[in-house]
């Protein structure tokens, strides 16, 4: 059974994703910060990490970069809080959705989903990146 780590600083979001994935039969661990997520990875192996990008202290991009260097076999799906489609600019210095996607891909994410996504899209993305 594939195991999945969900990292999001919003507990509601992390739990919702965990519930959906567990309901589909995955082993899921939820973490509410990048540090928590990294600690979980030290304890067990994961096939896929689903991580938010904007988080306090260590952000999602940094997490992805560490995974890429330390755990190259783990596949990463980044999720962002932008609009469902189109670019986003919160503040002049903030990152738009397209910049998000580009930055997440640059950091090493296999796929990027924008919130709020449908359950089916999430499951399809996870399944795409599982071995076999």
């Amino acid at each position: 059974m594939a195991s999945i780590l969900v990292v999001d600083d919003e507990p509601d979001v992390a739990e919702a994703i965990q519930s959906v994935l567990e309901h589909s039969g995955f082993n899921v661990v939820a973490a509410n910060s990048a540090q928590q997520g990294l600690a979980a990875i030290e304890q067990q192996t994961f096939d896929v990490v689903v991580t938010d990008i904007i988080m306090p202290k260590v952000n999602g991009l940094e997490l992805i970069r560490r995974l890429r260097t330390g755990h190259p076999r783990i596949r990463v799906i980044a999720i962002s809080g932008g609009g469902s489609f189109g670019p986003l600019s919160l503040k002049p210095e903030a990152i738009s959705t397209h910049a998000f996607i580009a930055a997440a891909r640059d950091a090493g994410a296999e796929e990027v989903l924008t919130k709020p996504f449908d359950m089916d899209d999430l499951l399809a993305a996870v399944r795409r990146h599982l071995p076999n």
Partner: protein
Amino acid sequence: MERLINSLRFRMMSVVLIVLAALLPLLYLSVSAIVEEGYAEQFVNHVRSFSRLTADELEAVSDSDFEQRAAALLDGVMLTGQVVYSEISGGPRKLQSSIPSAAHPGQRHDDFAFGDQGDQVYYISHSVKRGHRAVLLRLGFDESPTLERIAAAKSRVLTAVLTFTLASIFVSIWLSAVIARPMVRLQEAAKRVASGDVHASLQMRSGIREVQELNHHLESMRQGLVGANERLAEEIREREVSERKRLDLERQLLHRERIAAIGTLAGGVAHEFNNILTPILLYSQLALNDTPADSPRARDLQRIVSAAHRARNLITRILTFSRQIDSQGPTDFSMQATVEEALTLLRAIVPANVEIILNAQLEEIMLSGDPSLVHQVVINLCTNAYQAMSRTGGRLHLRLWMAVERTFESGWAALLEVTDTGHGIESAAIPHVFEPFYTTRDVGEGTGLGLSVVHGIVTSMGGKITVESEVGRGTTFRVYWPLAASSSQRVAAAAGRG
């Protein structure tokens, strides 16, 4: 009257007349006195030598027939016509001429003053020695011819003085006119200048050097004033223009800043909402999966999912408004195709009482960027337009062509005009139509985002949008987009050939 008294001509004439009035009687009196004295002296000299000669003759008369001869001498004297009275006294008896003296009153004292005593006779006496005794010869000379000559001379003097006076008056009138004429003309010109006709020349012809110089200085002063005036007017115009420009820029900046601020706020709110919507959507879909499809619970859950989707769409619109273009790289796309595609969608929702017309230029107009943004602009503008006519019905007219637009780099723009025949926009509301959340519709009828989204998209694509509206007649939006390089080169080449 006061004007006359204060006038230059009057004053100059007055001065001349006063001078003449003081001088001329003096002149007349002095000349008359000189003339009178001259004549009198001549008369007296003549009288004296005449009487002396007569006395000498009398002295030479012999004693024998003295009386007879003396009387004959007196007769001879009387016959000259100059002497009107003659007598010899001091002898044995008083001798007189046998010729009666015309105007002689008789015994008189010697009278050496010419012209005195009103009898016009000048008496003179000579003592003549006759041996051991003397007789007195007394002659009276007629003054009247001399007096007449004096009177005639005086009258000639008076005539000359009067003639001179008249001539002086005429000369003074002429002179004052000559001097005053350029001054009067100058005054009239100055009056015109003062009344606003600053271009009336002060240059006058005059033979008087001082007037010429005064004229010259005044004229150069006027030209200086006119120049200064024009410079001032020019400066004021420039200031007005720059002030207008400044106000315009200020307004634009304020508008942009407000929209940007609201956009930032909207973006932040949207981000939070997306996080909140994620568990709502996922849990409701999860629950829906576990619920038999035909159960009432499934229908309720489906409603939650739909509501979450609607919320997601609304946030998308808010984000579209707040976003800046940083798409994956612009692509060239056809305006006509994009507008037609949007109209296909619109025809499905526009009520039947609204007629949709599209006039598009045949030659393809290419834009560079994200076609979905243009799509959204068309949808939003047309949605507003048909909603403005939904009760009354009307015509939604779209026109699309390439237009000259000097503010764009290429000088050309794709111009999309969207005109409705709806209720129009109040003029007070027009400046606010592009502000986010500004709506004139009733609560629940509109978000107030449609036009601000349009504005955000158009300006982020480097275009501009204008609105023109009349209450009761309808509204026209004009959107100017920069052309893609391929289109602007083609149109420039075509314009160059044309």
